């Protein structure tokens, strides 16, 4: 079995963001970039499958973006992926995940390997859109299971059974391989790559491709154009309710009813 995982580089969720003058991008200087946390679930799942089963031959990690040094690929290789594919080009700097998925699908088709299982994160925490996985599955003409919190691969490696999280329930689905899975929080806890493994990761094979290496550069011009980034609308200042607990409770409920009118 061959497994492909996706890993995208994103700003650390803890980072304070500064919007560039002009309002169309973020200040990238001093911005800490990390592997998308949901993609870490995907990589961890792949590595654990390899550790648990005898039939996993290879884990390949792929990424797409405009920046060359890529924290996501490094992390994934250090966690246990065997080799990397990096699709890197200025035209991949945008937020249109459909375009990115189409380009990455073309890069995957270029590989001699065919993959039995593709694992990616439920969403990337920069765009927060979650479009990438399902779109990639469509471009590769594979079934997909989104938001997976439990995954079992059949002993013979030809099918999967997965639990996916929906509102107030889990759906249990079965699907033949090859298939694409998007990984939800709760599936697995990612390991921290050790320092020696981070060093070793630097020696693992990494294929770097540009848009011009793709046979079909994609039909797409971006479907989305970013006009402006703004801070979120400020929230009204907090009204602190004072007094002893009994009075506080009464006052709060009164305000919620009469002033905010939400109960």
């Amino acid at each position, binding site marked *: 079995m061959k497994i492909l995982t996706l890993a995208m580089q994103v700003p650390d969720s803890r980072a304070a963001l500064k919007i560039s003058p002009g309002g169309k991008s973020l200040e990238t200087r001093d911005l800490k970039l990390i592997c998308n946390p949901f993609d870490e679930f995907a990589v961890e799942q792949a590595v654990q499958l390899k550790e648990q089963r005898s039939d996993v031959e290879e884990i390949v990690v792929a990424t797409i973006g405009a920046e060359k040094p890529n924290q996501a690929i490094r992390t994934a290789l250090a966690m246990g992926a065997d080799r990397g594919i990096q699709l890197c080009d200025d035209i991949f700097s945008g937020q249109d995940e459909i375009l990115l998925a189409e380009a990455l699908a073309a890069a995957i088709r270029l590989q001699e390997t065919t993959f039995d299982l593709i694992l990616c994160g439920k969403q990337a925490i920069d765009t927060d859109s979650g*479009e990438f996985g399902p779109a990639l599955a469509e471009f590769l003409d594979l079934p997909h299971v989104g938001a997976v919190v439990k995954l079992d691969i059949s002993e013979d490696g030809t099918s999967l059974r997965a639990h996916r999280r929906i509102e107030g329930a889990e759906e249990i689905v079965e699907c033949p391989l090859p298939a694409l899975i998007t990984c939800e929080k709760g599936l697995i806890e990612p390991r921290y790559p050790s320092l020696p493994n981070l060093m070793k990761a630097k020696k693992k094979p990494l294929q770097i491709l540009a848009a011009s290496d793709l046979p079909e550069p994609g039909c797409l011009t971006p479907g989305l154009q970013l006009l402006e980034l*703004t801070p979120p609308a400020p929230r009204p200042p907090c009204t602190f309710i004072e007094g002893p607990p009994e009075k506080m409770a009464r006052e709060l409920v009164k305000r919620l009813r009469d002033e905010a009118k939400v109960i």
Partner: protein
Amino acid sequence: MSANILIFIEQRSGRIVPASRQIFAVAQELSLKTGGKIHAVIAGEGIGNLTDEITPLQPDSIHVADHPELRFYRAQPYAQALCAAIKTSEAQTILFATTSLSRDLAPRLAARLKAAIATDCLEVSTENGELRIRRPMYCAKCVGTFSLATDRVQILTIRPNAYPTPVPQAGTSATIQSLDVAFSDHDLALKVVDVVSTSEGVRDVTEADIIVSGGRSLQSKENFSMLYEMAETLGAAVGASRAAVDAGFQPPSRQVGLTGKIVSPRLYLAFGIDGAIQHLAGMRGSKVIVAINTKAEAPIFSVATYGCVADLFTLAPLLTEEFRNLNGSN
């Protein structure tokens, strides 16, 4: 391309998802500007009678994909059904409510149609014939304004509660059309074996108007019963911070935040939640936020509408009592 609009009406077990009704507000605004007709599509098995609930929201026509293979949601058959509806309605703009279903289906459909897509929009408008949207990004630390390409199908998913449901009109009518759908074996490769409830009789946080949420400081699973009691009084859902979920006090399905669920209820009550940026990412869109925390500097107060610097173990039972009195007096 026509300016027609197609609304996806999501139903689960024969019940229309409330957020689906809200997007009629978006469709009506767009239709006023562009003159496009409003179509709706609903998919499932044995769902024909649900059209009666949709008609009062005044679509021009309703397309019904009623088929045994559509009983449970699955991306590929549903994408097929939607493609059929898009074809007959000649719609250029497709609207979904942001739910787990649309997060799964809309991007797959966008890839199939090479469409422009924007997920979880807070606001939709038109400017010089262009569709513009605003959506949260970077853990809700920014809002991006985007325009969508006009030379292709445009797919939008709309944040629940971003728009109010239009008032249903009595005595309206709509053309009902049944859609001819056919599926290949490939479309049906994935099978839904079972759907198991994880709600334990409480509402899901994404579907509640009021959420009572607790953090690590609740200290145990048992102590959460305090919040459940309050939630029951209010008809609310119970949420939790990641720290409370990781400690095993609450199941992962209740987690609110970046790696949990994104919610925008009318009222969010945060008990002993610090307000880490990843938690705020999931709830800062709530209409009214109440924070109860012993630490006056806790970041949760920076987004709160009302703040109580207090011990939650003292205040929560008192609040439940007050809420109860309120119900009694109504």
